């Protein structure tokens, strides 16, 4: 074993599987950005890709790559920590490996079909084999079934490992949550002609994923990460986790109602959805306080600087992107005008990036550190660590820049198309053609390029960080002592 060399013997079986998931996640993150740039460009130059790679295709690949890479990241993170948390070896590693390859093959086929077949005739077979035409979960039905089977294998690995080893507060929450994540996916797996009913269940998947179960999942990962990178006390972290989960599910489950204002559902959702979703930012504040407080207590001295920086970016991104930008349009009186405009896109970018991309990137750094033989990753890295710092800066500024640009376009669209024009075909284009709207689209693309540059640097950093390092990782307790 040599320090600084990627050597899989540095990793446990579960962790070797985790880095496979991470590798695919990074590739898909790249695909997401590339196709996002294509789709963004089509707002400015509609002839680009017309009839070859139409907007709908680029967008479908963009958002699907995002969902899948984030799920890959989460699965990887859990394979990463399950053995340590359970205190025993992973149960069913071979099966887990098989599931990885099957899932990855399925994802590849789905993407190829998206790109080269694109659409099908108006028959139910198209929904089985080409795409379901339902934002975020467009994957055809055969792939849905494959995904569920692979998720079941994953769940078996995790639950059986905890059963064989020991349970903890974190693992208890985690396992319950995984049941919910997988179960909710089933709500998006049937066809119905009644579009109101369809969207009712579609939101169960989307909302109850990102604003309930995924938040809980990253709460678990964050809890583990704070213990790991800062040496925070398990008892305190676990208590905080319960508080966060209680608040998150207390607000987020009925907060679902903020998507039931206009799809045909009864008017009582105005009250239920408006009230509970307005409370959703509360747990996000608790999460920021928790993360920043813990970091402060440990004087930010820690074993992995890039990872901690990304964890802090996560705490703030989650709060601002989901909490603040979500709150801005969550009351029905506002949402009546902003619903389905670039305003939603502004919030969607900030929230998904701020809450979920960030924490996955933190886990990539934690994985690399160990993969390279517990290499040193605290202050004073080679070249002053410029690559990870610039990647962090460019990615965050890029996404925040896109968010603000989209917000300008969103305001313009909400006023011109929705409030004044009443959402007719002509009113839609009146907004799209307005100068401020177009400027917003232009700046989104410019900041998108900045995001892409940050991504390039991130990948470069991930493959090089620690390679020439001669020092070993600080032990968390020592890092904490050095701080005291």
């Amino acid at each position, binding site marked *: 074993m040599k320090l600084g060399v990627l050597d899989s013997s540095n990793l446990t079986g579960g962790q070797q599987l985790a880095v496979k998931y991470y590798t695919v996640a990074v590739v898909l993150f790249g695909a997401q950005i590339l196709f996002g740039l294509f*789709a963004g460009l*089509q707002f400015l130059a*509609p002839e680009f890709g017309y*009839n070859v790679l*139409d*907007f*709908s295709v680029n*967008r*479908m690949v963009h958002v699907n790559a995002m969902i899948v890479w984030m799920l890959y990241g989460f699965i990887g993170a859990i394979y990463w920590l399950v053995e340590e948390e359970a205190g025993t070896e992973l149960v069913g590693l071979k099966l887990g490996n098989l599931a990885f390859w099957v899932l990855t093959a399925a994802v590849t086929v789905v993407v190829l079909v998206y790109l080269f077949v694109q*659409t099908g*005739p*108006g028959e139910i077979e198209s*929904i089985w084999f080409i*795409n379901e*035409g*339902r*934002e975020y979960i*467009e994957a055809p039905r055969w792939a849905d079934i494959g995904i569920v089977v692979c998720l079941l294998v994953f769940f078996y690995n995790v639950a059986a490992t905890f059963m064989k080893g020991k349970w903890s*507060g974190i693992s208890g929450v985690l396992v319950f949550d995984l049941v919910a994540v997988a179960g909710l996916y089933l709500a998006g797996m049937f*066809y119905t*002609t*009644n*579009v*109101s*009913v369809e*969207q009712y269940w*579609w939101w169960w998947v989307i909302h109850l994923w990102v604003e309930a179960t995924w938040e809980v999942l990253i709460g678990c990962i964050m809890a583990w990460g704070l213990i790991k990178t800062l040496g925070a006390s398990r*008892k305190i972290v676990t*208590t905080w986790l*319960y508080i966060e*989960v*209680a608040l998150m*599910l207390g607000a987020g*489950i*009925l907060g679902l109602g903020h998507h039931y204002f*206009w*799809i*045909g*559902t*009864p*008017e*009582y959702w*105005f009250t*239920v959805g408006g009230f509970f979703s307005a409370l959703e930012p509360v747990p996000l504040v608790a999460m920021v306080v928790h993360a920043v407080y813990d970091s402060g207590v440990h004087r930010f001295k820690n074993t992995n600087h890039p990872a901690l920086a990304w964890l802090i970016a996560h705490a703030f991104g989650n709060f601002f992107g989901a909490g603040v930008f979500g709150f801005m349009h969550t009351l029905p009186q506002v949402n*009546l*005008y902003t*619903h*389905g*405009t670039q305003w939603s*896109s502004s919030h969607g970018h900030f929230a998904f990036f701020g809450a979920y991309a960030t924490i996955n990137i933190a886990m990539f750094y934690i994985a690399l550190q160990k993969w390279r033989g517990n290499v040193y990753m605290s202050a004073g890295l080679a070249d002053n660590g410029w690559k990870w710092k610039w990647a962090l800066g460019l990615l965050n500024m890029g996404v925040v820049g896109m968010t603000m640009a989209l917000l300008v376009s969103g305001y313009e*669209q909400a006023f011109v198309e*929705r409030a*004044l024009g*009443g959402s*007719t*075909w*002509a009113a839609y*284009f009146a907004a*799209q*053609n307005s100068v401020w709207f177009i400027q917003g689209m232009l700046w989104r693309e410019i900041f998108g390029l900045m995001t892409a540059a940050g991504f390039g640097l991130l990948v470069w950093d991930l493959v090089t960080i620690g390679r020439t390092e001669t020092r070993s990782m600080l032990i968390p307790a020592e890092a904490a002592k050095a701080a005291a």
Partner: protein
Amino acid sequence: MITTAWWASEDFWRKATIWITAFMVVVLIVLTYDSLSQISAGTERVPAYSAINNRIYYRQDKSRNMPVPVIGDPAPLFGKILSETEAEALVEKGKITTQAKNCMGCHTILGNGAYFAPDLTKAWLDPAWGSEGTREQLMMRFLLDPPANSRGYGSKRRMPNLGITEEEARGIIAFLKWMSTIDTNGFPRNFTPIAQEGDR
């Protein structure tokens, strides 16, 4: 010795988490039963598919202070009154086509989807179709060849040719007409519907 107050103890919060979550799930399930019963096809909020046999208005409801769809006199789609089963089959054809061609990859439907093209919720009532007399024909022509019938209103953005067949287009038009009957609580606000016979 430092003791932990009850409100800061791990045990208290574990129990609180379980009870709060269980309670919210139960409430959601109850509301879901109620909502689904109110939005199944053939209810006041989501009319039966055979509503496509009638004229659809979008009128301000003074007591609710929002515009709502009103189902008027018979005005059969493509000149033919359909039975409930036939109407459902036609709307279903359209609905499956919207999924197979991923219309939501560019458009919003009930406000959800993509923001590259106009919202389709009330497309049936859009004044851009001119008049009742020309609407069906113009919609059909547009769907069969969108670039040739493009409007764009000064934008270069066009809908691509998606290879929609005539049968599929009929289905889509039926689906759009049926969707315009859904009571969307006043979304989109201020919408100016196409002029129709019986307008006041």
